[in-house]
């Protein structure tokens, strides 16, 4: 499942995948895989991403259950 919250948080700071990846110490392809939902990052990387984007783990990575 695509992580659209991560994508929008990144876009809100006007960061490219490359820039965010560099700040988090990973490759651009890894950041792209996380956004596409092709790769589940470890908690350490999730925290690093949250720190760069100024968000919490809940904001970006917690999957909320649908009430429907």
């Amino acid at each position, binding site marked *: 499942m695509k992580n659209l919250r991560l994508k929008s948080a990144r*876009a809100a700071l006007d960061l490219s995948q490359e820039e965010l990846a560099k700040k988090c*110490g*990973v*490759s651009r*392809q*890894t950041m*792209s*895989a996380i956004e596409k939902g092709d790769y589940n*990052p*470890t908690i350490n990387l999730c925290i690093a991403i949250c720190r760069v984007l100024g968000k919490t783990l809940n904001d970006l990575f917690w999957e909320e259950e649908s009430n429907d």
Partner: protein
Amino acid sequence: MNATSYGFAVGLIIGLIAIILLFKYANRDGKIKTEYDERQKAVRGKAYKYAFYTVVFAQAILMWFNMTGLDLPVADYVLQFIVIIAGCTVLATYTIWNDVYWGLNNDHKKYQIIFAIAFVLNILPLVMNIIHGSMYEDGKLGMPMLNAVVIIMMVIVFAELLIKRFADKYTDEEA
């Protein structure tokens, strides 16, 4: 050990030292070791697994050739080298198609220069041996075939890198 074996051993040691120095030159942070992120490490682990299977499978085929007494027109050490290169090619192929061929600290341009130099260093002796008609040792393809095998691997890897780069232009998703 004969003179050729000594020469090969010395060449191997010089080659290893050269590789260490080249890595230091080609990595942006001056480190010998290439750095990978967590996803890259995981995917590369799979790549090493497939490369290992390839080597085991190829070695088993060689053993079978040997047991059946099949006499190939290629020296034994060339066949062993082909097995190693087959493993390396599988490793490179898997890592290229899964975006983990390049490490975080690799300078692509410097690696391309090294690639080009290695290509020339392999093609020159091969061409010279073809010109002098010295491809065969005791009726079997010998030392120059090592260069030919490396060239084949380099061509495959280079072609894959180009195709991947081309494919990424059309499939990459960037907001």
